[in-house]
């Protein structure tokens, strides 16, 4: 099947050898990262920029919107299944604080919540203590990487830092690259970079590719999530092209938005990015993760995204290795829903410890 499909994209898409300098990073394993329709996939190590592929990108906005509208009506999970899915959503969270008024104490509070996203008595009622539910990562500015690293020590929760002049990404390139290095040195295991949106508007794909590839090198063994700034890119075709370039340049994850744009994660944007991930996997045999960020605040929304991943990519993309929610407020609503599952009564915000 892969052989059949490769014809569409010519030879270049078949290259699976690492081609970007210093690739693969030391930590990249040869073990399968995921499977897609029964096919084992490696983690992403990039391919040369394939402009023909970008040229062939077609996205029909109205059709994409219809698919996401009907998707939310086609799939739902109830009762215990819903509780299980919500717990899964927690384990896929990048619990995030990115405010101008962040302080060390605030970050420590967030980390405490990350370690114990649901109260032990609730976990007991749901009989899920054995799962040791915790979030996937805590996401902060560089300044708080050290604080978070200490606060999360031994928890298995990863520290993620936004970088490269987040959120606008318009600092000089050397500074942005240096910023990545500093965060990695400070102990960040994941780096959320932002792309230069102007390069997308200008169709400067080579420059975009080079920029992201350089970021990737600077990340070293840290996982790199490429924020596309979809609220700025606006058109879904731009989103699809930027997704492909970021993956070709070696991104481990592609991420919708900074959370600072006027529109952040939406289902149509997510569908386009997820389809790009699928096509990239089918063409290259490599798996890239997806992170919607910004605007996901309700338990119901988290279920919509999880089912989107299940439908379009399958269960490997419903786990933290390949899927993250970039969220700050979602956890509270999920806790309330879980409480309802356990007690049969609707809960109130103030009954759950804040981050």
């Amino acid at each position: 099947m892969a052989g059949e499909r490769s014809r569409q994209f010519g030879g270049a898409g078949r290259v699976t050898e690492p081609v970007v300098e210093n690739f693969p990073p030391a930590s990249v394993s040869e073990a399968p990262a995921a499977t897609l329709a029964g096919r084992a996939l490696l983690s992403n190590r990039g391919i040369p920029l394939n402009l023909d592929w970008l040229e062939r990108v077609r996205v029909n906005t109205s059709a994409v919107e219809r698919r996401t509208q009907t998707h939310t009506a086609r799939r739902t999970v109830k009762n215990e299944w819903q509780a299980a899915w919500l717990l899964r959503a927690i384990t896929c969270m990048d619990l995030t604080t990115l405010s101008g008024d962040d302080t060390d104490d605030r970050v420590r509070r967030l980390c405490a919540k990350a370690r114990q996203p649901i109260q032990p008595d609730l976990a007991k009622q749901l009989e899920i203590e054995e799962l040791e539910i915790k979030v996937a990562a805590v996401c902060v500015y560089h300044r708080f990487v050290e604080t978070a690293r200490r606060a999360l020590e031994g928890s298995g929760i990863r520290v993620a830092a936004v970088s490269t002049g987040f959120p606008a990404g318009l600092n000089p390139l050397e500074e942005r690259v240096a910023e990545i290095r500093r965060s990695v040195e400070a102990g960040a295991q994941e780096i959320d970079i932002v792309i230069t949106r102007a390069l997308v508007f200008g169709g400067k794909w080579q420059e975009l590719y080079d920029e992201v590839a350089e970021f990737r090198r600077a990340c070293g063994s840290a996982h790199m999530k490429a924020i596309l700034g979809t609220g700025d890119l606006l058109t879904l075709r731009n989103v699809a092209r930027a997704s492909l370039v970021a993956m070709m340049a070696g991104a481990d994850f592609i991420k919708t938005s900074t959370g600072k744009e006027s529109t952040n994660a939406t289902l149509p944007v997510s569908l386009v990015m997820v389809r790009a991930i699928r096509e990239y996997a089918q063409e290259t045999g490599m798996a890239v993760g997806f992170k919607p960020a910004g605007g996901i605040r309700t338990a119901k929304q988290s279920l919509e995204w999880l089912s989107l991943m299940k439908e379009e990519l399958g269960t490997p993309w419903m786990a933290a290795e390949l899927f993250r929610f970039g969220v700050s407020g979602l956890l509270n609503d999920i806790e309330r829903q879980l409480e309802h599952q356990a007690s049969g009564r609707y809960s109130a915000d103030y009954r759950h410890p804040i981050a």
Partner: protein
Amino acid sequence: MSIAEKFVSMDYGPAPEDPKEAQAWLDRHRRRFGHFIGGEWREPVGGVFFDSFDPSTGEKIASVAQALAADIDAAVKAAREAFPKWQALTCHNRARYLYALARAVQRHSRRLAVLETIDNGKPIRESRDIDIPLVARHFYHHAGWAQLLESEFPDQTALGVIGQIIPWNFPLLILAWKIAPAIATGNTVVLKPAEFTPITALAFAEICTEIGLPAGVVNIVTGDGSAGESLVKHPGVDKIAFTGSTEVGRAIRAATASSHNRLSLELGGKSPFIVFEDADLDSAVEGLVDGIWLNQGQVCCAGSRLLMQESIAEVLTAKVKDRMSTLRAGPPLDKAIDMGAIVAPVQLDRIRRLVEQGIAEGSTCWQPQMVLPTRGLYYPPTLLSNVHPTSVVAQQEIFGPVLAAMTFRTPSEAVELANNTAFGLAASVWSESLNVALQVAAQLKAGVVWVNSTNLFDAACGFGGYRESGYGREGGREGLREYLEPTWFKNAPKMAAVKHPEPKERPESNARGPSGAPSSDSNPSIDRTVKLYIGGKQVRPDSGYSMEVRAADGRVVGEVPSGNRKDIRNAVEAARKATAWSKATAHNRAQVLYYVAENLSQRRNEVAGRLAAAAGEKQAVAEVEAGIERIFAYAAWADKFDGSVHNPPFRTIAIAMNEPIGNVGIICPREVPLLGFLSLVMPALACGNTVIAVPSESYPLITGDLYQIFDTSDLPAGAVNIVTGPASQLLKTLAEHDDVDAIWSFTDDASASAAKAYSVGNLKQVWTNEGRTIDWFNSKQAEGRWFLEHSTQVKNIWVPHGE
């Protein structure tokens, strides 16, 4: 299984819709329903009931009355009694009732959705999100039309009692499509729901009572095909509106031929789903999900033929298979199900049989790994590839979740394959190039074309087919026409039954000079032999015989060729080849028609002089003068009979285009040989049709004048063909001809019935004077939109937009 285990598996669990309230409603009715006639529930005359089943469980839902002819008669009587008062209501009053129906449907939306799913087997998502909201939308929209009827349709009137027969695939939705426009325009209704799915129609009957709809305006009778047959044959019905299979549509056409029932048919389809290499392929795949896997493929407009451009066929096929693997089939009341149950065992058998036949004919069958419920009627989503146009699965409507895939090389081949079917209901075109999509959309023979989308419906947009997918539209302004007719026509007197002598094939004597105009002096005029006019040439008849033409006083005034079926065959072939005319711009057509008028004007005296022999001098002069004006009128209309742009509640442009019907056979009226011919042929030509005309039997010599005028007016060869001869025989041949798309008969009652009866072969559109008198000199009657509307069929092209 614990939450922890579910956390690992991440499966979807069951998500059943609670049917408690709907079941309680059925219990309140003791699960037994009579007919709803004259605003009350009545026991069936025969006392016989049948059961309706839930196809997903096989459980009985309720017992429903079986209508006999006497029940149908009672319902028609009730509708007839209610008609005068209902029609006499003010527009605003009728609008209030329709508005109330819309509101009531919304109030009971979930009950109706659950009942629909229980009775039909379709997923609750569809009945809840598609069917029932569209039902409400239809009544809202038509409440508006009821309000605007007088101002928007002046001089039009309701037909009377409408008999409506609907299918089981969208039971309540199609009920709304039928009832809303009918009662909005002042008609009253007897509706028979499908035998498999009568429940929501009965729930709707209760809603009619609830909102206080006057008794008899809506009557619901239940039963099998025999009840439908009684309704079709009932003499008290003014129109039959039918949605269902093409076979039954044919039977209804034949059964209504001799009555003056109007008829609209919305029949089967084998709709193409065309994907070009520059399409958004992932979205096209979702289009298929909404197309062939909506309602388990039991959709008349389902995109059941997948036509893929060769260059992307492999990639697209793989994507389709991947997507089929994630479809979920199961209990239809589950909210996370894509496909429910097939409506009845007989349908499931049909699907199985046709798929087996397709495989036997060389198609490759692929079905995803899928666990189907052991109880209930289920069929998995199915892809048949390597399907050739000759295969039964490419030609016949399967009415199941079965997609037949084939490839094409170029846009023109895509159109050719797409149109290679007797049907013409809908089509879906996928391309990111507007040029390609619109060009293909324009060439498709289908009543609805969805660009980069599929199965979009709305009350504001007409829905209905070309060819054997039926005629008439539902929805939009075009749909209302089906339930209205010009007031003058409704009141026009019947023609006196006059027995015209059959034209003789041989002159009994030769006691006259050479044919043509009487010579003005002693020198005999040169013999003028009138011939047939076929493909722009004057040709002798195949038979080699001529018929004599007599003046009113019995004097022989000339001879015309005695055309036969072969001449008709040749004329139809010539008309089909006259693509120059159908492709000409409207401006061009106008120019040619003006030129025809100019040339007639130049010959007015000679034409009138000859015509006078048959029609008298006064009428002859009047016919020529009125004829010139009539041609002018249609030359004027040629570039002005515009379509419209509808406003459905989507981000889309919905273009309603007036397209020519194709080859139109016209039997011209006897009484006004020239003006009658022009009054019918000119609007057909103005709209881009090609014509095979049989001129007035009383004076077919007019042919000789007409073709001389056409020949000098730049009319492309074959645009008009004229065959003289015994009209009743020529009518039969024309009406039976499968390459004639419409037949118009404007002579007598018998011919009107014959045209209908003989049209069943390809279900061509039939338009007749119903044996009524038309004043051809009165332009209010004999000219204008009524004629243009019959010269066109509306194609709705949906073009969603957004970047």
